[in-house]
């Protein structure tokens, strides 16, 4: 017999607002026919949904007491505590900033998306769609669904709920990644790889979940923990299950060797989508990883920590070293995001409690700089000999002399790069410091040593771009081949993220206090 579940609607209000916004967006697609109007309405709707949800989240944050307050919804499938609220707010901020990038256009009025996703690249249908000024404004509701899925993802405390949330946010991302306006084949190829490998890793995840269910007869984190604590000797199914589940999450985080999708997907996807993917997906994955490790699997520290160490070191090393030889700026940032996944994993070394506040802070600093950097990439465009402005100029060499062309924009890019490199007075430094301190706290200094060395090596390719922008003369034949585009939405995003990067680097005290408040998980499910 079916009993209606008990749902605390109030506690889940932020998610509900976002998902309702997504549903309304679908209706907008159906009923508003003029592309321009539709776009404005979709943008407004998306901003209202994300900012509104953010407001609700802030109110809830204030009503929860800092020490382990929260609401358990639906018999332990989802939990709302300060940790979840912090992650959800962060994802909402990333979503709102990305929505502005989604809506930005070039001077010539082109958006970043193809006019008709279903048309084959180069086909007459595509040309027709271009001519008629069609637009896939579906990306806005798709992003809202992805945001909603991620919000559920970070608060899930049950393997089934986690899996559902994973698919809810992944499917829209696969779609959006395929919708680039230019280099359509590259975009579709990247998206397809992302989808295939995502499906593969979902399978791995499900296999692990099945093993855990087989061992404990439950999919809830609380039950898994209880089982592990009660029978520490019998781990035959638990251990492989835990490894497989973690691999599913590490795939989303982009850790080596489960990172292979990210360079192709990052490069092929429309840059605003890349920005959203890089910032929000990584945050969601890190949050889910934190929760499952700290709520269900922490008694297995001895068994699992070497795996975390190995993967963290591999990720930092491979991400950094391969980024050194990249010549495309989007691919370079993709590998840099792989390296950052490694830095995030450093915090898990030893399962320090500090990680619960260090990781959210790190992801905030990383995500802000990432969105800012990709926003700037959308502004640097190729220009053909006849003066028509083409796609983004992503070859590194094309960025030479940007500092002279647009000092402010190049300066902001420099700031983001320095933040990625973890140079003091930028947010990235504080973030790295927190993460490394969390690892050292639990005696993880060897891994921190590797992390510091990797940071030093990584500084090379970040600084190389700065040198290129500011200190390299532009070759004669390239003088006119690059143009700096302008759209107010993009610029607003750049200035907001740049200001936040600087602020979090110079005066991090307030944000650190918030992160410290967020470092409480609701346990005992």
């Amino acid at each position, binding site marked *: 017999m079916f009993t209606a579940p008990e749902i605390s609607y109030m506690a889940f209000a932020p998610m509900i607002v976002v998902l309702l916004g997504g549903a309304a967006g679908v209706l907008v697609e159906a009923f508003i026919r003029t592309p321009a109007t539709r776009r404005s309405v979709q943008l407004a709707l998306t901003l209202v949904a994300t900012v509104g949800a953010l407001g609700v989240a802030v109110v809830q944050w204030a009503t929860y007491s800092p020490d382990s307050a929260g609401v358990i919804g639906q018999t332990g499938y989802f939990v709302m505590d300060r940790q979840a609220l912090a992650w959800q707010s962060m994802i909402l901020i990333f979503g709102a900033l990305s929505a502005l990038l989604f809506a930005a256009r070039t001077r010539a009025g082109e958006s970043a998306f193809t006019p008709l996703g279903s048309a084959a690249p180069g086909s007459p249908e595509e040309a027709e769609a271009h001519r008629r000024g069609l637009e896939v404004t579906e990306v806005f509701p798709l992003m809202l669904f992805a945001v909603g899925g991620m919000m559920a993802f970070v608060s899930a405390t049950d393997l089934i709920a986690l899996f559902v949330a994973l698919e809810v946010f992944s499917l829209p991302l696969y779609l959006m990644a395929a919708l680039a306006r230019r280099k359509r084949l590259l975009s579709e190829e990247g998206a*397809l*790889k992302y989808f*295939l*490998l995502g499906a*593969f*890793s979902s399978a*791995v995840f499900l296999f692990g979940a099945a093993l855990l269910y087989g061992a404990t007869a439950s999919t809830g984190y609380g039950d898994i923990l209880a089982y592990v604590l009660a029978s520490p000797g019998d*781990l035959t199914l638990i*251990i*492989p299950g835990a*490894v*497989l589940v973690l*691999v599913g999450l590490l*795939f989303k985080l982009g850790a080596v*060797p*489960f990172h*292979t*999708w990210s*360079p*192709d997907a990052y490069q092929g996807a429309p840059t605003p989508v890349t920005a959203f993917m890089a910032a929000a997906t990584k945050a969601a994955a890190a949050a889910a990883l934190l929760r499952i490790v700290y709520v269900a699997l922490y008694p297995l520290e001895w*068994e*699992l920590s*070497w*795996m975390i160490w*190995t993967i963290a070191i591999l990720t930092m090393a*491979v991400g950094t*070293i*391969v*980024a*050194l*030889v990249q010549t495309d700026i989007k691919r370079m940032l993709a590998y840099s995001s792989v390296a950052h996944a490694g830095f995030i994993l450093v915090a898990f070394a030893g399962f320090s409690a500090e990680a619960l506040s260090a990781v959210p802070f790190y992801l905030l600093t990383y995500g802000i700089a990432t969105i800012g950097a990709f926003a700037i990439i959308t502004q640097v465009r190729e220009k053909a000999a006849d003066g028509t402005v083409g796609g983004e100029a992503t070859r590194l060499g094309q960025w030479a002399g940007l500092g002279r062309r647009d000092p402010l924009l190049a300066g902001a890019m420099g700031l983001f790069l320095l933040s990625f490199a973890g140079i003091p007075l930028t947010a990235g430094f504080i973030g790295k410091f927190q993460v490394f301190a969390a690892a050292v706290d639990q005696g993880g200094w060897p891994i921190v040593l590797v992390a510091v060395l990797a940071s030093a*090596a990584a500084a*090379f390719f970040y600084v190389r771009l700065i040198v290129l922008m500011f200190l390299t003369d532009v070759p004669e034949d390239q003088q006119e081949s690059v143009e700096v585009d302008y759209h107010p939405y993009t610029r607003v995003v750049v200035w907001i993220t740049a200001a936040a990067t600087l602020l979090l680097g110079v005066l991090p005290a307030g944000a650190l206090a918030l992160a410290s408040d967020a470092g409480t998980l609701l346990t005992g499910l």
Partner: protein
Amino acid sequence: MLDLTWLLIAVPLASAFVLILAGKRADAWGHWMGVAASATAFVVGFGAFLQMLGLDAESREHAVHLFTWISGGELTVDAGLLVDPLSISFVLLVTFVGTLIHIYSVAYMEHDPRRRIFFAYLNLFVASMLLLVLADSYLLLFVGWEGVGLASYLLIGFWNHKPEYATAANKAFIVNRIGDIGLIIAMGLLFANFGTLSFDEIFAEVGSVDTAQLTAIGLALLVAATGKSAQFPLQSWLGDAMAGPTPVSALIHAATMVTAGVYLIVRSGDIFALTETARVVVAAVGAITLIMGAIIGMAKDDIKKALAASTMSQIGYMMLAAGLGPIGYAFAIFHLVTHGFFKAGMFLGAGSVMHAMNDSVDMRRYGALRTAMVVTWVTFGLGWLAILGVPPFSGFWSKDKIIEAAFVGEGWQPWVFGLAALIGAGLTAFYMSRLFFMTFHGKARWTDDAHPHESPWLMTGPMIVLSVGSALLGWFLASGDRFTTWLEPVTGHAEEHDPVLAVPVIMTLTLLLVAVGVVVAWLKYGRADVPEEAPAPSLGVLVASNDFYQDSFNRAVLQRPGTHLTRTLVYADAAVVDGAVNGTGVGLLKLGEFLRKFQSGQVRRYSALILIAVAALIAGVVLGVL
């Protein structure tokens, strides 16, 4: 007025900044502003002095709190001034002699296009020197110490378009760095032992600290003093420092800055009082330098270098006195003050002679200048009598006291130090008389284009004032033990001790040696003809005229190995460190190219990679558990 002593530093400092920043528009009046700033400082200092005279001896120590300078953890340093008889004596000397030399410089530097900058540096020097002597903590003293070092460097190299002058400035600066390190080490030790750097607090606690520590502090302070005061073994820079304009030599490298080391030792008297070892080393350094300086002075034909050697030697006397402990402190300062007058006077005289002789400094081309430059001859002569220690001129009162004090004590010390001081007096008489006779007497050996003439009144005026001081100041300060009593609150009261020789014997011996020195010099350089070219030197003269080959020694023992060390390090840095870094970079790039191949773009390979990784992880974890 005592509370306004901060003006002493502020006024010249402000003037220095204005002179530098105002640019060419201040060229017309800048030098007079410099003079006014120095004179204002003198007026303030004199007012403070008068007010202090009105107080009891016990209450003559006045602290002026300025502001909290450094506040961090255990270390709190207040910037404050300590106005007491010792510091006010220095204030009067620095501002009075300083103002006279400022006035002299107005004429001396008249044709120099950068005269305004020269006065800015002079004012900077006055401000720094006053900060040095008025500071109430070692740290603030150090600021002044570095300030005078900077001013000295800037002024030695004032004509830095001549490479050798620039080199001389660098040499002075670098040698002084060694001394500065000594002061920094001393401050470190002081802070480690006392937890503070302020004079009051350190001297109050000094009894509770281990003697070995105090000895270390004392020796570190001595290193600082030898650097600043051109004492053995850091004396080599002073001769080259004569590259600076002559007023600079008079003010900084004779009368005031070079005596800062003596000030430092006397100010730290409470520390030295408890460490016999450090005191003996101080006295020994003084004794060595006074003989060494005198011998160098005998062999120099360059009038300024001869005077510089004499300065070294006279400061050796002061250092010797300071090393004798409380009995000598007052005499050290006494000699410092009288020396400040007569040596500054003689330097100004030398400047006047150079002015007349087309800036030539070679005494072998002087001679018989007494008729052409009467004022210079008379004023220089009074300085000469003073430094000889002929009664009743100034030097007699101060130097004789030091010689007597050097003979006080037990064991070997009074004999060594006393005889050194005694012999030094004879040598001084010889080389100063040689200088005096070669310049003003004998036959004219002028170059053809020389037309000696008396200097303008702006230059002779200060010389006359200083010569009056050379003649009378010693007697004035010595009568009734005026000066020693005045300094007693700082230096402490010294019990009278009898020297190992009777005082009249010492005095007679001293005067006898001086007379011998003068007569020998007269026979050789006054009556006999002085060759225009220096004759082939005997070994002794060669050694002395080359400053005992200390430069060569420094070059061979310190500079060459240092250069080789640096070269080796640079090479190691390039080959080993850079090589390792570059090699790592190249290696990483190659590794990157290799790893890149795994990113083949083929999904089936990616999934295979994931599969293998998962299998490996599970195997690892399971094996780990088993």
